C-alpha cells in the first residue's frame, strides 16, 4: 500500500517537473520565433556636412 502511495507521489513530482520544463521550452521557443522587428530604413541621409554633435 505504501509503495503505491510512494509511486503516486513520484509520478506527481515527475509531472510537476515535466510541466516546468515544457513551460520553459515553450517560452523560449515562442520568444525566439517572434524575433525582433526589422525596423525601417532611416530617412536621414549619408552625411556630407560635419554634424555639430552626435
Amino acid at each position: 500500500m505504501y509503495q503505491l502511495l510512494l509511486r503516486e507521489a513520484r509520478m506527481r513530482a515527475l509531472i510537476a517537473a515535466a510541466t516546468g520544463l515544457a513551460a520553459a521550452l515553450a517560452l523560449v521557443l515562442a520568444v525566439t520565433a517572434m524575433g525582433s522587428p526589422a525596423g525601417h530604413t532611416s530617412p536621414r541621409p549619408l552625411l556630407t556636412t560635419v554634424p555639430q554633435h552626435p
Partner: protein
Amino acid sequence: MRRKASLILLALAVFFAALSPLLRWYAFPRLAKIPAGQYQDMVLEAKDATLLDYGTMKARKVSKVTVVQTLKGNVEASEKIERSAGRDVVVWDSLSYVQGPDGKMVSKLPERYIFDAHSQEPVHATGESVDGDPVTRRGIEFKWPFRTEKRDYEYFDAQTRTSAPIHYKGTRTFRGVEVYYFEQTIPWTKVRFPKIMPVQGVTPESLAKTGTTRWYTTVRRFWVEPVTGAPVYGEESHKEELRGGTLLGGRDKVTAFSGDVKMREDYIRHTVDLVKANRTLVLLMTSYLPWGFLLLGAALLALSLYLEARGRRPGEPTPAPATDPEPVSA
C-alpha cells in the same frame, strides 16, 4: 495543501533551472543581432595634417581635416537578400566623407557592406561594393562580433579592397570600460583613385593618362568592447602619396594626405555611453539572467523539498528501498 504547494514550487524550480541554459545557449545566439535599420554617424579629425593642394600640386600643412562617417542600414535591401540567403542579413550603406579646413570636399568613399546579423560574417550578394566597384569581402569591417575573442581577425580595408589580419594586442581599460586593443598595418600599396575627385574636370581616367599613381599606407587601431563587439574608440595614422607620371612636374612623389585621424571628443563620450548601455543588455542575456534563474531554481527546489518534508505526517514510516525480485527457480 503543503504537498500541492511543494509540487508547484518544484515545477517553478524546474522552469527557472531550464530557462537558464536555454536563455544563454539557445535564445541569445538567435536574438542577439545587429538591427537592420541602424543609423549611425561618426566624426573623426586629423589635426595639423598635410594635404595636397590640387591647384599648385604641392603638399601644405592644414589646421584640420575632418572625416564624417555614416552607416545606414538598408532594410529593404536586407529583406531582399534574406529571402535568397535564408538567414538574417544586414546591409549597411556607408559614406566616408573627408572635408578640408575650408569646408570643401577632399574625398568621398561610398560602400555597401552586407553581413550576417548574428555572426558578422560577410554575405556575398549583388551590390556589395566600394566606390561603385564590386568587391568580395573577407572578415569584418566597422564592428567585431558579439563576444569578441582575444585573437586576430581578418579586417577589410576599403582603400586596397583587400582583407588583412588585425592583431589582438592586449586587454586595456578605456574610460572605465574593459576593451580589447586591435592594430592593423597596411603597408604602402598602390590603390585606385576615387571615382569623384576634389577638382572639377579631373577624373580617374584623366589621371591614369598622366601615368601618376596613388599609394597609401595606414596603421589602424581599435579599442573594442568585447561583450558587444563595438569599438569604443578608433584612430588611424594615414598617409597617401601620388607617385610618378607627368602630373608631378618631375618630382618622384608628393604627399596627398598625412595625418593622425582620431575620433572627436563628443563622439567618444557618446559612443562609450551607448556601448555601456548595450553591454548591459547583452550581459543580461548571457550572464545576469541565466545565473539569476539558476539560483532562483535552486532556492525554489530547496523550498519545495522543505515543504514536502514538513507535509509528511508525524510517525509516518520511511519508505523501504525497493528490492530486486527473487530469482525464480524451477
